[in-house]
């Protein structure tokens, strides 16, 4: 028994010790921040903001938070973002366990109805789903039309030397090799964006497979996560899969050119993604919930999408609300400069203007929370 007591006292000691360490850590922060608090926060102490949601923008948000904390405006504001997935983010903001949520796909009306207040969508950055492939001697230049892409993933086009693929790629030495398809097995926003695109461009896909976070794939091998698909494609000659742009760029994967609505083949560059967003023009809806799949415009990459921050139009706490809106205001302006380095496409000016109007409309107790920026 004595020994047991000793074991538990050691564990207890560790716990108390670490709790004290973490307290010391934050109280130190308090001291340094309280002396430099600026007008952005109305209260004198530290404001802690928590956010949860999509995995896709996590590296960018982490970068924003780090950069923002070094600015005078960010002193006394502690932002925390955790990538628990879009679904988790929507649940957390609906339960009000976080101050802001984040999601890749805009809320459906049903999801929006579950929240106890009106949630605003703030587009923060843009990403793209890219087609990556592994073909000997073809590092770049593979062109795919929507029909061919749907045909491949439906299993109708089985070999790389199929005449339908050759038609767009006359110059490439396409091998007589069967196509091995790699798709995601876990539910994911990437799959949702990709299948939504396929359903939009191929009636066959829409009726046979449909769109969603996970679908019943007609053919192919499954892999978990973007990293799983990346690894699988890298190791399997003759394979093709879809991943987020950042994974393809970080791993130097070969990516395909896709034929856009205007009939041009476009590679997934950041400019092409921003162009897809800009092509929305004045068709951007009031609530900013929009799909930019297969957009107009010669330069638009067809499988681009926004990612959103979700927050309540009426903030309970004026100090927190003010700090949050100031942070997001910074994010859609100065924060955009960090995007290209991390393979996110910056927001086009037209969308930034729309975001500004949304942020200005946020209130707490009837008063706008945004101090004059």
């Amino acid at each position, binding site marked *: 028994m004595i020994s*047991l007591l000793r074991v538990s006292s050691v564990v207890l000691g560790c716990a108390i010790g670490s709790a004290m360490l973490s*307290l010391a850590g934050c109280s130190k922060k308090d001291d340094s921040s309280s002396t430099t608090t600026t007008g952005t926060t109305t209260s004198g102490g530290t404001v802690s903001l928590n956010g949860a949601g999509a995995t896709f923008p996590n590296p960018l948000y*982490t*970068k924003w938070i780090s950069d923002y904390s070094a600015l005078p405006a960010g002193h006394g504001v502690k932002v925390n973002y955790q990538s628990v997935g879009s679904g988790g983010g929507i649940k957390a903001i609906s339960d009000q366990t976080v101050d802001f949520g984040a999601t890749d796909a805009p809320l459906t009306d049903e999801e929006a109805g579950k929240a106890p207040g009106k949630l605003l969508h703030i587009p923060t950055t843009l990403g793209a789903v890219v087609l990556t492939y592994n073909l000997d001697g073809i590092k770049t230049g593979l062109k795919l039309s929507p029909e061919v892409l749907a045909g491949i993933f439906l299993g109708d086009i089985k070999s790389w030397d199929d005449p339908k693929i050759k038609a767009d790629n006359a110059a490439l030495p396409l091998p007589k090799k069967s196509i091995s398809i790699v798709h995601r097995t876990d539910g994911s926003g990437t799959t949702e964006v990709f299948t939504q695109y396929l359903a939009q461009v191929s009636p066959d896909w829409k009726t046979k497979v449909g769109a969603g976070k996970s679908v019943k794939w007609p053919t192919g091998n499954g892999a978990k996560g*973007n990293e799983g698909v990346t690894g699988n494609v890298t190791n399997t000659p003759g394979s093709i899969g879809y991943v987020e742009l950042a994974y393809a760029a970080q791993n130097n994967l070969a990516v395909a050119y896709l034929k856009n609505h205007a009939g041009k083949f476009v590679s997934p560059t950041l400019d092409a993604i921003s162009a897809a967003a800009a092509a929305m023009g004045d068709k951007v809806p009031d609530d900013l919930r929009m799909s930019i799949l297969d957009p107009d415009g010669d330069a638009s990459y067809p499988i681009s999408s926004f990612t959103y921050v979700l927050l309540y139009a009426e903030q309970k706490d004026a100090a927190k609300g003010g700090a949050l809106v100031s942070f997001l205001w910074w994010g859609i302006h100065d924060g955009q400069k960090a995007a290209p380095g991390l393979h996110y496409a910056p927001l086009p000016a037209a969308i930034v203007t729309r975001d500004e109007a949304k942020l200005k409309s946020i209130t707490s107790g009837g008063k706008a929370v945004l101090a004059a920026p």
Partner: protein
Amino acid sequence: MASYTQRKLVDRIVTGLCICAALLAIIPLGSVLFYVTKQGIGAVNWDFFTKLPKPVGETGGGMAHAIVGTLTILGIACLIGVPTGILGGIYLAEFGGTRFSKIVRFSADVLTGVPSIVIGIFVYVIIVVPTKQFSAMAGGVALAILMLPTVVRTTDELLRLVPDALREGALALGVPKWRATVSIVLRTAAPGIATGVMLAVARVAGETAPLLFTAFGNLGWSDGIGSPTASLPVQIFNYSVSPYADWHRQAWAAALVLVALVLFFNLLARLLVRDRSPAR
């Protein structure tokens, strides 16, 4: 009747097979340890233990907050789970035998099989949603619930292994039952119970799913046990699914630290118990 040499031969063969099987059982552990060390050791340095993470694109940084966070959450889990579990086990072994104790034993067995993410959601609903706050406390409760069945059942099993003669001896000397339980039965079983507790701690130390929606996570230092707190498993999870090589290295390093932490607690518990226990 087989000859002596024949029997000797069979004995050798069977012993050899046993040794092979034992080696085979060690191979997974050995290769996991080897691989985690190989991948992680490069990124483990002083900064890793003392600094906060850096965003993508900036090298360096560490996971001090996640190490402290994991210890905090494990500490809370132990404070709640260990006493409850041991007392529950004592009840089952020493005062049980009723219909109620059968139900408790059965429930503990069922609880062992409940997926950890379900526990996470349960704690999210009963603690996080009402308080509107993710916290280390909620994470600790989730892990405590996960520890509970292991601690209850090992305590129960081990106490029942203690010979009745010891109990009877104590009672015959006029010692009250509670005293016999604490000083004789529990003390005899202490090394085994400590091992069970350490197994439970090791099992929950690496859990990610129940922490995601309870302790949540934090990019920096936690504001206290009532606030979102970073932990090594969640950090490993977040970093390993990212596209960045630098984050992957950090994730490996975190995995190595986590394994080392569990190993350290295990050894510590064994040393303490071996030195003190009368029953070696």
